[in-house]
């Protein structure tokens, strides 16, 4: 009986400790209020160029909060079946930041990008610039985009396009009607 009393004491103590020490991260402040906004997401058209699909999305009001949400929306793919998603389907958006000098950082993850993406140049070019185009089109203050993989600088996504420098939009990759 004495042992059982000790056990109950230990259990209640540990529960108390757990409760005290595992306060959930609460860095989502008042800025987290969401409003509907129409965004332009870039996917690959049958003409092998990037084209925009407009979509209304619930977004945090400040652009720093909205940016990761918009890039996550891009990774969901197009609603128009004629448009192709360029990024691997299991891509996750770990974060997206905007610095006051106009540099946006998009941090990607997911099994394919982590283990090595078997991509061709064209699909890699489309994937990288779908992000660059989507970020710069929806956030005019973002002038250039740096892509990270798993929080760290990556050489390329699939062996072709250099990610060790900020990228600016390439209009020649965008369908003239969507520019």
């Amino acid at each position, binding site marked *: 009986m004495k042992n059982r009393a000790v056990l109950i004491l230990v259990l209640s103590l540990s529960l108390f400790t757990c409760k005290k020490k595992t*306060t959930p991260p609460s*860095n989502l*402040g008042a800025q987290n209020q969401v409003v509907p906004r129409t965004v332009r997401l870039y996917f690959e058209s049958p003409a092998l160029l990037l084209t925009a699909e407009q979509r209304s999305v619930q977004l945090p009001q400040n652009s720093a909060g909205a940016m990761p949400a918009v890039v996550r929306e891009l990774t969901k793919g197009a609603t128009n079946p004629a448009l192709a998603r360029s990024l691997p389907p299991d891509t996750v958006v770990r974060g997206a*930041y905007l610095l006051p000098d106009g540099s946006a950082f998009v*941090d990607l993850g997911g099994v394919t990008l982590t283990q090595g993406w*078997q991509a*061709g140049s064209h*699909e890699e070019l489309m994937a990288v610039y779908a992000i660059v185009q989507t970020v710069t089109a929806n956030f005019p203050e973002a002038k250039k985009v740096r892509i990270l993989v798993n929080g760290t600088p990556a050489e390329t996504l699939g062996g072709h396009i250099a990610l060790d420098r900020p990228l600016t939009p*390439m209009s020649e990759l965008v369908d003239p009607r969507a520019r």
Partner: protein
Amino acid sequence: MKRFALLAIAVLLAAASIGLAQQSSQATLRTPAGDKPLPTIHQNLMTFFSATDVITALGGAVTPDANGFKVTLNNVVAAFGPDSRFAVVRDDLIEMPLPPVIVDGKPFVSAQFFAGFLSRAADMEVSWDGTARVLTVRPQQHNVTGVQVNVANVQGTTKVVITLTAPIDYSIVKDAQMYTIRFKTPIRAPYTDQAHEDPNVSHTTFAGNDLKIQLTAPDVVGDAYRLENPFRVVIDLRKAAAAPAQGMPALPPSRPIEAPGIHTIVIDPGHGGKDVGALGPAGTQEKDATLTLCRKLATSLAAKTGARVVLTREDDSVVSLDQRTAIANQYKADLFLSVHMNAAVVKGARGSETYFLSLEASDELAKKAAETENASSKTTPNASSSDLKLILWDLAQQTYLNESSKFATDVQEEMNAIAGIQNRGVKQAPFKVLVGATMPAALVEVAFISNPDEEAKLKDDAFLATVVDALTKAVVRYKTDYETRIGVIQPPAPARPNVAPPPASTTTATTTTK
């Protein structure tokens, strides 16, 4: 009962580990303005400091955003979030041992963040005394320079990188088996002696203001240069009669003399080893298709051009993107062609396209180099051009973009002459494999391996022979054109005698010099 006792121990251990995982306590923040209490968190054997307390004590601010936090001080902004070990500041990253910890909405970060951020934002340095529990933030002591030494072997060359917290004068003396770097002002040595497992460097030792680099053999020779932002002294060490680095193909026996013209051509079969590249619907791997084609192309080029032809890989081995360019540079190649097979998500994509490096990528680097050059001319008036060596490596292709564009056009035009090939044109993009090439360089996407018809063609010897023939013609055409422009070979007699060839001075200005 025994089971209960085991359970109790397990629960107790779990509770203890949670306690170990996160403990909050107070430390002292010491700034030039005085001491303040500083909340800290101890987790995973690391101390994390309240970013808000440190930054506001220095007159800055920490504000939350949806991803994490924004830190502002003296108009310098950094951002970090709980998911990443990297904070971003301007275009740069600050590496932290662990991601920030958020407790009650307040961010706690490791001392490395403050060291990285405050050196940029306030010219201050940070030290943590774990025994006295004092985090000291003070103006950087410019009279004592902090030193860090890194030794790394890159393709057979040992790079000793000495990073200094401020630019200071130094001299380098070579003894029989030792380089001594003598700093003219006091330094703060990170250690007294360190052994290295390196083919060229055995020990690095600090004594007073000297850093001694002990070499493994007397025939190790060095090449020293400076880099800025941060200030670094780099010493490249290699064996005096160094053959091409390990993993490089052996030199073909007949080395042409180093005269102007196209004498060495490097062909780069894309991908290799575990990097299979794109996959065709019937299972063809890009790495195999490129190697098969490039082997045939190398034979054809050697026969038709008389040039030395080098493949960046002769078999199914892994060769990094940087190494491919390094091979071309090491062989002082006059032309570089990377061969790939394309792939697209969109069904029906077909055709060939040729790339050269985009101006965008080189513009960014040119800006960076100019900034470095400016910084270098301010601090070291007699800085040699080798100070910019590493950035110039990145910038190398910029000088050759005009020639690369001509070469890419020749390649694409010859590819277009193949029956049934759709012309996707000459394009520019920031291809990593083209960035460091110090010669005209292009990348050809022969066909779409993702297209079943084109995948089948890539298995067809007759089609491959046509592609080899087209690429050989393109190289011969570029070689003839280039050598005519630089005056190595005489232009064919003009059709109309009154049309004079362009003056040599204007043509050579745009061509490569070795």
